[in-house]
């Protein structure tokens, strides 16, 4: 297991947001975290990253505990994080956003830079522009590009499809499939079709606890599970499935 969480609890102020999170992420592929709004998916990612440290439980990365480490130390271990709002520094240029991610100036970094420029040709054209002027989709690509510039072995991505047009979402799916070649991905996603398209495994969180996990293709067939935890289908008397 590249990452495991056991009995993790997190408070934000007075709120007991995460109550019992248990999850195992094997090396490689995409693990999707699903669940309703407010179930605690984002907080789970932030807790792994050390942004909202857990009060109880254990978090181990490659067998070593990362609980209680500051976020930058966790990031240095090779864990990348793309928040829901992408975390682009809009006052900085595209190039500066990318440069912030390059910790070394060695040949490997250079080759990664070229690789990123190949995957995202439209970023290459806009290197000198302020990143605030990018479209939503371009910002998402920039955020992903940033994590590819160093040797991240685990990538946490929070709702990348949020607010993107369907055609951009399709491109996003391609990019995530490309990412799989380089790193292990943990994806929080509300867009069930996207989750189904790219994910190998799923974990469902409800009310701050992990309630279900398994293989993605099986969840795709299990309408009852979808309805119960994800609220993505209409009640049975309502006619067609939406």
């Amino acid at each position, binding site marked *: 297991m590249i990452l495991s969480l056991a009995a993790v609890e997190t408070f934000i102020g007075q709120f007991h947001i995460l109550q019992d999170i248990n999850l195992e992420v094997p090396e490689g592929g995409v693990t999707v975290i699903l669940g309703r*709004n407010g179930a605690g998916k984002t907080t789970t990612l932030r807790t792994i990253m050390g942004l909202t440290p857990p009060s109880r439980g254990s978090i181990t990365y490659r067998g070593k505990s990362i609980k209680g480490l500051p976020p930058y130390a966790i990031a240095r271990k090779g864990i990348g994080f793309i928040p829901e709002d992408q975390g682009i520094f809009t006052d900085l240029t595209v190039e500066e956003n990318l440069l912030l991610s390059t910790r070394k100036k060695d040949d490997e970094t250079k080759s990664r830079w070229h690789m990123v420029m190949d995957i995202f040709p439209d970023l290459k054209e806009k290197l000198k522009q302020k990143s605030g002027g990018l479209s939503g989709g371009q910002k998402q690509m920039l955020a992903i590009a940033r994590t590819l510039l160093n040797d991240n072995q685990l990538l946490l991505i929070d709702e990348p499809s949020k607010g993107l047009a369907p055609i951009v979402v*399709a491109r996003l799916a391609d990019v995530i499939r490309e990412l799989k070649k380089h790193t292990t991905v943990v994806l929080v996603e509300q867009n069930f079709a996207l989750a189904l398209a790219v994910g190998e495994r799923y974990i469902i969180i409800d009310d701050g606890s992990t309630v279900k996990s398994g293989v993605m293709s099986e969840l795709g067939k299990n309408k009852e599970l979808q309805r119960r935890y994800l*609220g993505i289908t209409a009640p049975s008397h309502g006619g067609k499935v939406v």
Partner: protein
Amino acid sequence: MAEPIIRTQDLTIMFGGHTAVDHVNLDIMPNKFVSIIGPNGAGKTTFFNLLSGQFFPTSGRILFKGHDVTDIPAHLRTRLGMGRNFQISNIFPDLTVLENVRLAVQARSGIHYQILRHHRKYSRFSDQAMALLESVKLSGKAAQPSRFLAHGEKRKLEIAIILALEPEVLLLDEPTAGMAVEEVPAILELLARLKTDKRTILLVEHKIDMVMSLSDTLVVLANGRLLAQGNPRQIMENEQVQAAYLGGIAP
């Protein structure tokens, strides 16, 4: 045909290069229960924030009972009769539960600047506030500072506060967000009861199944645009809506 109580004309807001709400034209008829649904990031909450005055639009207009309220600040919209809740519970943490509601009752009564009479002299405020707390089943916690309430209780308090404002239009943004499953039915029941009263309710909700039986009208937003509106059955059968919810990707 009655006049719409809220009408938006080409309502648009842009953040940076992103158009969060895109030329939305919507009529909301009085005394209806209208739910705005849509996938995450569809612009529901932003649209809602435009109606309540949290944000001001880049272009377009908002009419309330035929009057242009596009540039009117939030607190005046409340006084005109538009009350809203917040997705993140937004209360006064160090004041007691009762004081939270009483402040809303007081705001509604128009007594704003009364600096010498003790607030206890206004016992009718307290009575009304207490009655409202009873109706959301929180009266037992009236004397506690509200910061000690559980998450679900805070949402209930939030609803009591808005009810105290006696708004003609009740704007509710995901009132069950972040609630424990066992708490949700109580809120649904409360919403169902609100529906019988003479008021317009505008609900933003992520979970379609929740609003299906409550709503007179469903409005679907996707990518900031108004995708469809109609009664629940019409919406269920709309293919565009299905596509939007599924995200337009072949599995």
